[in-house]
């Protein structure tokens, strides 16, 4: 079941094209990563989902029907550029933003009490935002984002500007929100957080979607059939045993009398065949498939795209 979908969304600004024909499908209950280099159009897409700007063409769907303006009350948004009213007191500010998202005063109060207790910041209630440290302000910002218990949460670069402790806290909160049934979209260029958190991703570059799908499926799709084999025995024998279908990329002595080899297998064979070839001759200590990290895929895809673009311009020129 899709919670949110965008179909063929395009958006141009006065001087440049921010999005062209972007589609994305966000399954309910997923943590969805929106990746891409700076200036790719991520923030524009997030603003369109938040109805801050309208797309030139394309459609948005929420809970399987067309998105309506009232739906913004079911979305929580934490923009990349964090901001609060500096002169306003913490308590009043939380109530104000809660009510702006459609909560009544009483409900807002109850939920604020819960979050304020959870983060142990009750003593800040009457402090002005400008009196708080940046980390403290981030916590207030987070509460404002989740206060109205939205079904869809959108974080734009959530980990930028957080110190490691707060970043970890945020990560745990995001996972906890998903546990409670929320769907989360976040944009980032921090790939380790993608591998850790995301089920699905969309990679945008230069206003276009390059790849979309489940993280594991994408990594599988990009795997290069390379296996890491740890073994004990005569390392010189390895190359003799393996025929032309296999290629030993490199080999190192990982421990005394133990070696680690990276072996690429070609299409016709399988990992089982490789293993059966090796077993009679060596004592195998480990056997794992090398799956590329999101970081490698990201760099690979973005570079490939840029090469295509430069080739095209070369041909046309």
């Amino acid at each position: 079941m899709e919670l949110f979908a965008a179909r063929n969304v395009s958006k141009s600004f006065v001087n440049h094209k921010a999005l062209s024909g972007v589609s994305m499908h966000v399954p309910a209950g997923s943590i969805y990563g929106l990746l891409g280099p700076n200036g790719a159009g991520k923030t524009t897409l997030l603003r369109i989902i938040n109805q801050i700007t309208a797309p030139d063409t394309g459609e948005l769907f929420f809970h399987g029907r067309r998105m309506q303006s009232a739906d913004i009350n079911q979305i929580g948004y934490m923009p990349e550029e964090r901001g609060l009213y500096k002169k306003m007191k913490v308590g009043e500010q939380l109530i104000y933003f809660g009510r702006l998202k459609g909560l009544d005063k009483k409900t807002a109060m109850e939920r604020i009490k819960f979050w304020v207790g959870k983060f142990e910041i009750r003593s800040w209630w009457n402090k002005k935002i400008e009196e708080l440290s940046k980390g403290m302000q981030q916590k207030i910002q987070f509460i404002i984002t989740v206060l109205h218990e939205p079904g869809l949460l959108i974080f734009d670069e959530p980990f930028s500007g957080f110190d490691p402790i707060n970043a970890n806290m945020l990560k745990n909160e995001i996972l906890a929100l998903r546990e409670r049934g929320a769907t989360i979209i976040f944009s980032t260029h921090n790939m380790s957080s993608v591998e850790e958190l995301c089920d699905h991703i969309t990679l945008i570059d230069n206003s276009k979607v390059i790849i979309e799908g489940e993280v594991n499926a994408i990594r599988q799709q990009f795997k290069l059939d390379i296996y890491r084999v740890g073994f004990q025995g005569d390392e010189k024998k390895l190359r003799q045993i393996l025929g032309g279908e296999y290629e030993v990329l490199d080999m190192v002595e990982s421990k005394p009398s133990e070696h680690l080899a990276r072996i690429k297998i070609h299409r016709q064979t399988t990992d089982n065949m490789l293993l059966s070839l090796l077993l009679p001759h060596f004592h195998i200590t480990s056997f794992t498939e090398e799956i590329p990290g999101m970081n490698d895929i990201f760099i690979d895809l973005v570079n490939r795209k840029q090469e295509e673009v430069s080739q095209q311009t070369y041909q046309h020129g």
Partner: protein
Amino acid sequence: MDKKTLLIIGREFITRVRKKSFIVMTILGPLLFAALIIGPAWFATMEDREVRVIAVIDSSRLFIDKIPETEYLKFDYLENTTVREVREKFPETDYYAVLYIAHIVTSTPSAVQLMSDRPPSMNIRMHIANAMEKEIERQKLAAYDIENLDAILAAVRTSINIRTIVWQDDGSQVESHSELAIIVGYIGGFLIYFFIFLFGAQVMRGVIEEKSSRVIEILVSSVRPFQLMLGKIVGIGLVGLTQFLLWVILSAAIIFATQQIFFSDLAVPSSENIVIEDMFSSSTLQQAQPVEEADTQIFREFLASVSAINFGVMLGAFLFYFLGGYLLYASLFASIGSAADSETDTQQFMLPVTVPLILSIIVMMNAIMNPDGAIAFWFSMIPFTSPIIMMARIPFGVPTWEIALSGGLLVGTFIFTTWLAGKIYRTGILMYGKKVNYAEVWKWLRYSG
């Protein structure tokens, strides 16, 4: 208006009304205003309550015991002394001043000197000059040796009081009081100018604050930019109205209270008394009216001229033109704020907004002197100047159709500028780090997304 806009209005209103600067302004405003009105009257009475004795050295011997005394002004006629002698002893005496009248006074009017160790007050000088002129006139007439002179004089003396009557279209007539109308016109026009500038600039600053603190992005993910702009404009407008009404109430209270405390024993301040007696004591002889009645008459006339100005209409007009003018300019101020990253960026856009306002004040001077002239008429129709100019004209009486036309144009224009400003605003608030110029703003206007 929807719930979210009301919420925004509430925040804008409450955060400003609670500010120290608002409370200070609310209290200081009426105090200053009251001080301007009460102060001079109070000082005048303080001065005149002191009994002053003036030594008179009359070489002509024409004025001995002839200058009328008042409750607070006495004359002491000295004989066989010189100015020099009196001057030497002056510090030990209680004399306020020394009046020296040379014997050639009937032929040389400048032969009278009033000397003191401080500049004598204007009222006293006028009182003495009037009394002496009248005495010389009486004596010169007496030299003609006319029978029944006093009776003739009383019979010929007539006082003229020109009343200005304005014929209305419906056949009725209204007495106009230009002086008061001028004052009320000025105050009304200036107040509108002041309020538009003060609260328009607050709208601009509010927009810049939300933009520079980046809170704007959270706001527009909850409400539409137009709701946000409208909420801010209305909220701050209500602050302005509240301030104005508090000023009216507090000013009235202060003036009333001061009257009760300080002037309760005086019907009319005594400094005026001298002038009034002077003007009426003789003119009323023919009608054989006692002086007291003349006093109440002029007081009644003053009251009549105050009540001739329809304060209900004035207040209504003020509220309408304040709101109309404010809404028109505030939306422009909001769009300027949205196009700027900081207040220093606003200069280039401020000019076209401030020029019509300042022009209004210049034109207002002309309009008050000639409230039915072509300049006054046209500038009270142009919506960018009409709030100030029409406000200044209204105390003089303006045909209903003119007010209706000017009001209609104003309403139409502010709806248009608000719509226009909304277009600039929603693009501007999300635009950072870019030097915005007029060409850029033009693109935003044509851009429909």
